[in-house]
């Protein structure tokens, strides 16, 4: 069997990739995609440790996290669509309505 630290390191790498994308892109949908990668890295951790302890709770948390990610994607994308109607662009650098 693979030691859990392998999964944890893989999850850290995935998290960093997501972070990389999050910090370097300005496209709203691209940022949402990166957030999905981040959430998946976290889920991988939960499931790996759940396997370590032969516990169900980690799976359950991962399940809840997947559901929350689906909700987040739905709301985030609809916000982006509403924003696109206003600004005619997905570039978050151009959104200045909420700045002061």
């Amino acid at each position, binding site marked *: *069997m*693979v*030691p*859990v*630290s*392998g*999964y944890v*390191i*893989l999850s*850290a*790498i*995935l998290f*960093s*990739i*997501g972070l*990389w*994308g999050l*910090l*370097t892109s*300005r*496209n709203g*949908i*691209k940022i*949402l*995609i*990166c957030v*999905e*990668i981040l959430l998946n890295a976290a*889920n991988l951790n939960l*499931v*790996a440790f*759940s*396997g*370590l302890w*032969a516990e*169900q*709770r980690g*799976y*359950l948390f*991962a*399940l809840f996290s*997947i*559901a*929350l990610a*689906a*909700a*987040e*994607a*739905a*709301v985030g*994308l*609809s916000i*982006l*669509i*509403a924003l*696109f*109607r206003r600004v*005619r662009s*997905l*570039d978050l650098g151009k959104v200045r309505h909420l700045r002061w």
Partner: protein
Amino acid sequence: MSLFVILALYTVATAILAVRTETLTYSALWLAAMLIGVAGLFLTLGAEFLAVIQVIIYAGAVVSLILFAIMFAQHRGSEPKPGSNRARGSLLALFFVLILSALLSGVGPWRVLPEGREGFLELGRTIFKDYLLPFEVLSVLLLAALVGAVFLAKRERLVAAGSERIGTGVQSQDQGQKQGEGDQAQAGAGAAEAASERGAEGKERGKGVS
């Protein structure tokens, strides 16, 4: 090479592609590939149910949602330029990888236990006995997210009316009546405002009766 190494390499490669591909549609498809890789990793951990859920909800629903959003919100020439803080962000992420790997590689000899459980049965029991309330709360949350998403993605008129109201702050009552419906769904509306709206609605109803 073990299955884990292959899956790990696949997942990391597809994640990088998802982040780096400039065309949004391809990026979303690479995301789907990455999600399927994560589902494979779940399988190697003995979490069959989660792997199935991952493929159905993530690779199925979320990715198609993203694709729909891309097709709604894109026209030629609307692609934004890549961010200006690219170098700094890349450095920070690299730093993150190094730190986390250094920290985590030293920690304990963890091993995944061989399967000593009844899988689905046990998970179902955990959800519906010990965690029933969080599960129900989650379903309510999903409903709220659904309603919110529909409201936000509705036609411009409604959304614009709502934000205009919030922006100006003070307004005469009859305008408030017109836009009351949109405002009530908006979470930011203050309690006093809501109360005055309710009063306005009551007047409206009274007029209708008389």
